[in-house]
């Protein structure tokens, strides 16, 4: 425990800026993965244990597109669109068959696909780790804001994640499609009786969740090494986020992810040997005080 370092940081604007942006970066990437997870659970009532694979595919798709075209924007687009299509196919062909089935069955199907997807990546891209490399536009000196260090690429990353959060939040609450999705989550039988194709909604939601995870993977690709199985560690933290924020709550995923990012960022200064433990401790405190998570609703 190094509380002096933590106190010193809290009283320094340079340190505060650096560590806060550090927390935001970690949190926003986590949010993109976790929000897909929570969305799928909220609507489909399925805990998608294979969700980390979409993060992995997003990174690999983006890397391949970047290598072929040299365009970073296209790489992001391919990462997101590719995983959306993959998500749709995965949901229609496999997951749709286990809705309403025993949780164990759903878990087994998802876990089987974790292994299958990892092997597919190994076959296509090889078992060795890979690096996409930072696009030349972002190979610049970091910005110095109030003495703190902020890399320009991370500003873009935070911006993209924020836009995704806002579009998702407004889209689900204000648009007609959003209302239908929320209605399907609440009472799919009634939605179906009104002549709306719930299968299409389910497929769309799964594709959206996959796309968000894929976008996170694509955004992370320039700064994280790519390996088969890379989605697993992200998945664990995403589960912590959804548990803290409340399963099914998008606002909860955002707040949970940001809190987790800040805990890691400032925790590494004050509690260098207990940073991981702090995340779990926080989760336990939330679960004990509010078992449904910060923004989760009690089951009806």
């Amino acid at each position: 425990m190094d509380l002096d370092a933590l106190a010193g940081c809290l009283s320094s604007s340079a340190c505060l800026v650096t560590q806060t942006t550090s927390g935001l970066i970690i949190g926003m990437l986590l949010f993109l993965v976790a929000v897909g997870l929570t969305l799928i659970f909220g609507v489909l009532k399925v805990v998608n244990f294979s969700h980390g694979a979409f993060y992995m595919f997003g990174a690999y798709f983006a890397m391949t597109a970047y290598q072929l075209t040299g365009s970073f924007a296209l790489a992001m687009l391919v990462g997101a669109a590719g995983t959306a299509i993959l998500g749709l196919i995965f949901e229609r062909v496999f997951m749709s068959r286990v809705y309403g089935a025993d949780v164990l069955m759903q878990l087994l199907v998802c876990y089987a696909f974790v292994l299958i997807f990892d092997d597919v990546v190994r076959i296509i891209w090889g078992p060795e780790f890979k690096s996409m490399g930072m696009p030349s536009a972002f190979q610049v000196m970091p910005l110095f804001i109030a003495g703190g260090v902020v890399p320009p690429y991370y500003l873009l990353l935070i911006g993209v994640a924020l836009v995704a959060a806002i579009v998702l939040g407004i889209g689900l609450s204000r648009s007609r499609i959003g209302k239908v999705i929320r209605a399907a989550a609440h009472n799919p039988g009634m939605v179906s009786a009104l002549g709306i194709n719930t299968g299409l909604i389910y497929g769309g939601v799964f594709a959206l969740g996959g796309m968000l995870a894929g976008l996170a993977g694509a955004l992370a690709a320039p700064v994280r090494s790519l390996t088969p199985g890379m989605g697993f560690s992200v998945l664990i933290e995403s589960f912590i986020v959804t548990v803290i924020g409340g399963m099914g709550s998008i606002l909860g995923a955002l707040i949970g992810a940001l809190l987790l990012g800040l805990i890691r960022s400032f925790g590494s200064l004050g509690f260098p040997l207990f940073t991981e433990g702090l995340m779990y401790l926080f989760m336990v405190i939330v679960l004990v005080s509010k078992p449904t998570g910060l923004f989760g609703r009690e089951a009806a």
Partner: protein
Amino acid sequence: MKRTRTPGISRRSTLALMGAGAMTFAAPWVARAQAKTIKIGMPTILSGRVAQLGTSSRNAVMLEVEKVNAAGGLAGRQIEMVIRDSKGQPQEAARVARELVNTDGCELLLDGEASSGSFAVHEVARDLGVLCIHTCSEASSLTADPKQHIPNAFRCVRQGIHDSIVGGSYAAGIAKAKGLKKWATCSPDYAYGRDTTGEFTLYLKRFAPDVEIISESWPKLFQPDYTEVVTKILQAKPQALYSCLWGGDLTSYIDQANIYAMFNQMEVFAVNMADYTALTVVKNLPKGIHSGNRYIKTFPTTPENAAWGDAYRAKYNEYPTNWSWQNATAVMFLAEAAKKANSADGKKIAEVLKGLTIKCPFGADGTVTMRGDDHTLVGYAIGWGTTIPQEPYVPEVKAGDWKTIFELEAEWKKSKGYT
């Protein structure tokens, strides 16, 4: 009275037959010894995050085995490798090793496991008495600790303590020359990371007593994001950083530290940087990272080493790794020992292996030795240098001095109670 023989098998013949049968079943290696081929078992990591290292181990072994077989085999017996995936799990490594000997009939073992798995395979070798050469574990205690010593196990791998002595000495020289007194460390949070960092700083401080460690970071193994670690180090404002992160973790760390311009703000010493697995993957490799040699074909700067690296690349379309040269050396040792023993028998080979010196492309002076008293590899090329972003990646390597290594290693063993 004259005894007459009754027809059928006599009691004496029956006893002889039973004895022969019992010998065959109780000591299957007697029967196996007559076989034309000799099976060598190899548990290694062929799946998961470090599969690339296991695959490169297998490749290197096969490259050398082909040469041995072309030259007539191991004491006249063609080698058949039986290579199995342990998935990097110690219990699986032990199970596979046992199965290779008991079920597959392997007479020798090459243990291509990381440290955690190697200790498990070592116990199998202790139990079965089969000759076992560890080819990947750098944990010093595997052979330095006398409790681990068994007559049938050897280690054909670089050792953590050797790297730390050479690294500490090299880094101290630069610390003194550039006045680097404030140091930070960032290494993976498991036995290898903790031990290697501890040993490096021990020798760094010994050679440069002014050095002070002002910040330590211990990210977990295979952590995807190092942002908080990078910013923590930036806050501490050290003049130099030591890291023994490796593989994909190291490349992630470099990519993430690069965008904070960290490499402009401090000298970085990353012992595992100079390995092709990392050098060829990092797209924006900063100039001037100090690293120990893992495997590069330009050190030692001999035609033999360059030729070996090129031959490997020509066959497998990729560069060898640190694990590759160690595995290749193990096969070279086996071939030479079998030739000297004029036998492929494990016990006879083990006797010859003790203290054996062979010609080797990876030797500091063109030879390497299997030290007799602790059954471990010495005399291999070891050194540190600085990176550049393109080939040859580490243009100049300052070689470590084996005389100093031996002296300090002996002291270290004494301090640990090993001698």
